[in-house]
């Protein structure tokens, strides 16, 4: 079947693919054919390019399928790409993966648009004034060596997104060779506060959540069907959860201040006053009456009346939730972005974990995770603390050489950081980039990367399911552009500048990867198998499945140290909470230049190609705002202008703007569409972890007097069709839960 040799061969013999595209596509010049007007027939003029050498399995017009790994987010879904005439056409999920079992999310589907994107960087670019000048790779490498000469490790900083697998090992080795410890790992949207809270309560950062075993899921703002941790996997578990254990359909209750995709799927959606998730969790523990000792002591004060007053959730609802949780066990309680995004996020998450423990879910629906037996390959994680440290160093002018890979801090850093200005203080800035995004534009040297469908690699997901797995990434087709390089190849080239002898055996990253995998063949389940056979099987499968090591799970969530702050004072200048919406397709905005993602309507508002400000209709009426009004949203840090969308799924004291749009660089499909709420985020940090409290920014809104027609798929506001409501609505407190379940 598919062997590595053929993939290499495919990668090694370029021919002009653009001609192929012409063959496949509709071409501009049309010739009138007898009997038919309007055709694209190009007899005798168009070139039809054949293979120079073709493998037996390559037949023009017939697809060949290769397994690889989705690189659109770090959930690590395995993909299976259809390749025809040497071009990748469509991605599907690989059914063999325990994570996605043959499924793929919309963001994953758009991976082909990352690859074919017309705005990819194609040559190494060196800054010359305001322009990037194309230079050769030799010159680029020489330049980096020159800039690094005589620079101490302290003066070097490497900023990256989450990296895992062999690339992480190689990157670590490179940083060692430079003598630097300044590796800052920054993912703009990461559940880092929840990780810390989990570590405290369960002894692990990310336990395995068993939606499929739960009878009730109570989620505090965890958008697990859309954008949280491993959404494709969770969606499948969710389907099982809905089918139910013993025929009893699982019930989903979502508590959040802004409705997410998961919230829209819930049986019960409760709007909670921003930041009071922990109070509600303690209130539920109180209402359950199951706690003893310290915990009972802690929740004593959280009687229904007080909790209802502080959270805005009616006492009746609290009773119903408690009754349901008592009736149905095991359940699963989750703390998501919304719960952790406050200065007391850790406390919120701790209260929620405590609820899990009181309900006896630990060990039942919260299981011990497995991980790969190679700790050096598990993903590096990080969030705003890392960025803040680096930003402080930059502000102090500490760094002479700065590298940036797989992160776009100029776009995602909270405005209060003034990251762009500080970044400019670094001596020499190197960006490894796919696009000329906001950060690459500030760099002195931009090195163009292969797309994920052209590159080699291994990936280890943070969230494992049944057993551990190492995902293989392999080229589905040869390079589109002759002068892009894989990150592994670049690192190998750079590390050879320092440790030529140690790495001279590896001609390229492919050789390195193959060597590293085969070296551990035994541990990877290939003991006694021929090298070539094992390697070819590994590539064919696209996944190495391992027994993995299991970290044991503790249940030491306790009342100790759990103090929830008094309800936040209303700020008269900035009366509204700003909730940054994380959408399933845009996430932190690194893929906004893929037009499918811009074009696919937001699942809740159906808006396309633009940002919006979600405001509760009541609040809007109070402020005299209607849909389509352009409003100015101002925080202490800055302001943005965007169109209003009236949305009943948001707390009246909050507004929400989705993140991911509002690029002023990156490419034709991203630049100039929408606004970037990161820009107006205040620097408020979570008390225990120091991470950015993303939901703490307070804003005010004012009308600008302009009004636009909101471009969206749904009908006019209120979802009326021909004057009739499509579906009648009943507010949640009107529903008798006991009748439903």
């Amino acid at each position, binding site marked *: 079947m598919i062997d590595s040799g053929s993939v290499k061969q495919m990668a090694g013999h370029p021919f002009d693919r653009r001609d192929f595209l012409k063959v496949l596509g509709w071409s501009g010049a049309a010739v009138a054919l*007898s009997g038919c007007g309007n055709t694209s027939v190009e*007899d005798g003029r168009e070139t039809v390019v*054949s293979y120079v050498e073709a493998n037996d399995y390559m037949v023009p*017009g017939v697809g060949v399928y290769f397994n690889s790994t989705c690189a659109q987010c770090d959930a690590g879904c395995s993909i299976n790409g259809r390749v025809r005439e040497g071009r990748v056409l469509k991605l599907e999920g690989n059914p063999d993966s325990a994570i996605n079992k043959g499924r793929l999310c919309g963001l994953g589907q758009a991976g082909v648009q990352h690859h074919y994107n017309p705005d990819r960087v194609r040559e190494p670019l060196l800054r010359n004034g305001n322009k990037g000048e194309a230079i050769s790779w030799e010159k680029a490498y020489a330049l980096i060596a020159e800039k690094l000469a005589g620079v101490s490790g302290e003066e070097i900083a490497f900023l990256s997104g989450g990296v895992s697998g062999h690339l992480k090992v190689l990157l670590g080795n490179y940083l060692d060779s430079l003598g630097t410890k300044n590796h800052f790992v920054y993912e703009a949207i990461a559940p880092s506060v929840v990780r810390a809270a989990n570590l405290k309560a369960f002894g692990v950062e990310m336990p395995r959540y068993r939606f499929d075993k739960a009878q009730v899921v109570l989620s505090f703002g965890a958008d697990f069907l859309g954008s949280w941790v491993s959404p494709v996997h969770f969606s499948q578990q969710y389907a099982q959860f809905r089918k139910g254990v013993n025929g009893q359909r699982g019930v989903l209750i979502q508590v959040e201040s802004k409705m997410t995709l998961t919230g829209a799927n819930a049986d019960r959606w409760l709007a909670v006053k921003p930041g009071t998730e922990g109070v509600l969790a303690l209130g539920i523990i109180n209402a359950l009456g199951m706690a003893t000792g310290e915990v009972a002591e802690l929740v004593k004060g959280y009687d229904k009346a007080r909790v209802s007053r502080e959270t805005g959730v009616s006492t009746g609802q609290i009773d119903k939730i408690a009754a349901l949780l008592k009736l149905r066990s095991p359940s699963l309680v989750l703390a998501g972005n919304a719960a952790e995004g406050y200065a007391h996020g850790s406390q919120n998450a701790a209260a929620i974990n405590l609820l899990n423990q009181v309900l006896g879910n630990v060990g039942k629906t919260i299981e011990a995770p497995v991980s790969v037996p190679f700790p050096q390959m598990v993903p590096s994680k990080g969030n705003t603390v890392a960025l803040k440290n680096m930003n402080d160093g930059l502000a102090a002018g500490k760094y002479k050489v700065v590298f940036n890979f797989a992160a776009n801090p100029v776009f995602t850093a909270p405005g209060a950081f003034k990251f762009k200005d500080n970044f400019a203080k670094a001596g020499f800035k190197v960006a490894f980039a796919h696009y000329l995004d906001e950060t690459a534009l500030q760099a002195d040297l931009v090195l163009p990367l292969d797309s994920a469908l052209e590159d080699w690699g291994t990936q280890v997901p943070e969230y494992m399911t049944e057993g551990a797995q190492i995902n293989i990434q392999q080229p589905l087709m040869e390079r589109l552009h002759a002068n892009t390089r894989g990150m592994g190849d670049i690192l190998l080239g750079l590390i050879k500048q320092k440790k030529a002898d140690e790495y001279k055996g590896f001609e390229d990253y492919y050789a390195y990867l193959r060597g590293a995998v085969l070296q551990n063949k035994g541990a990877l389940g290939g003991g006694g198998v021929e090298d070539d056979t094992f390697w070819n099987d590994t590539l064919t499968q696209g996944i190495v499945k391992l027994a993995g090591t299991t970290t044991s799970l503790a249940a030491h969530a306790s009342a100790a140290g759990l103090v929830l702050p008094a309800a936040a004072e209303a700020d008269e200048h900035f009366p509204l909470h700003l909730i940054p919406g994380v959408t399933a397709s845009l996430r932190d905005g690194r893929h906004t230049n893929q037009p499918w993602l811009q074009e696919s309507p937001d699942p809740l508002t159906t808006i396309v190609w633009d940002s919006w400000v979600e405001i509760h209709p009541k609040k809007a009426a109070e402020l005299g705002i209607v849909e389509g009004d352009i409003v100015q949203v101002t925080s202490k840090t800055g302001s943005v202008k965007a169109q209003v969308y009236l949305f009943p799924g948001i707390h009246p004291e909050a507004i929400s703007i989705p993140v991911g749009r509002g690029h002023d660089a990156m490419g034709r499909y991203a630049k100039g569409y929408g606004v970037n709420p990161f820009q107006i985020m205040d620097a408020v940090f979570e008390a225990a972890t120091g991470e950015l409290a993303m939901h703490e920014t307070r804003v005010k809104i004012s009308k600008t007097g302009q009004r636009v027609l909101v471009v969206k798929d749904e009908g006019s506001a209120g979802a009326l069709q021909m004057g009739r409501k499509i579906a009648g609505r009943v507010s949640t407190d009107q529903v008798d839960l006991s009748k439903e379940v």
Partner: protein
Amino acid sequence: MYRFLRFPILLVGLFLAASSFAANSSQPALTTEDSLGPQVQQPIEFPHNRHAGLKDASDPAKGGMEINCQYCHTYARRSAVAGIPPLQKCIGCHQNIESVRNKPRIVELFKYWDAKKAVPWKKVHDLPDFVRFNHERHIKRFVEQQDRPVQEACGYCHGDVKEMTVARRQKSLAMGWCASCHEKDHPVVAEGGTPIAGQAYWYSFQKPAAAVDANTKARGPNDCWQCHK
């Protein structure tokens, strides 16, 4: 004013449409009708006649070699598109044919091979993008099931290639021309062909004939979606 004009124009249009339909419907174009395409300049003037032509008994150096079309055009029976033979295919034979190794065309061919570059052949047969012609089905039908000679089957659309040097389009390849064949009553089983009972059924959406013999006739598929997918 304009509105006033519209109706008469519509009438005239209708009349023209109807009369042209009448003129055409009386006599469908024959499948044999030739409609030569443009003479195409190819990077290498490939002699089809030398490869596929009939042998010259008196002088083997002069005639053709009667190579089966499918030897080089191997994709036609396996895929909707016929593709162009990979360069490797040419070299596979020619590296062992010393006698012509220094002929200009062969020298040119090896230049591409040594540079590992594809020969930029020009398209000779092209269909509009909204038409999906399937080579594989036609070969299955005529060559494999009805056992017709390969050159005859390919020739229905490509003409008498064994007589050509560089191929040239011989038929119009327009829809009416395709239909002229699909609308004819054809024997389901040719002499010497494999009798397949279900043939008539899937071929023209009739109930399977009780006994399929040389007299059973059927038509090619005539649903729009067969080609316009």
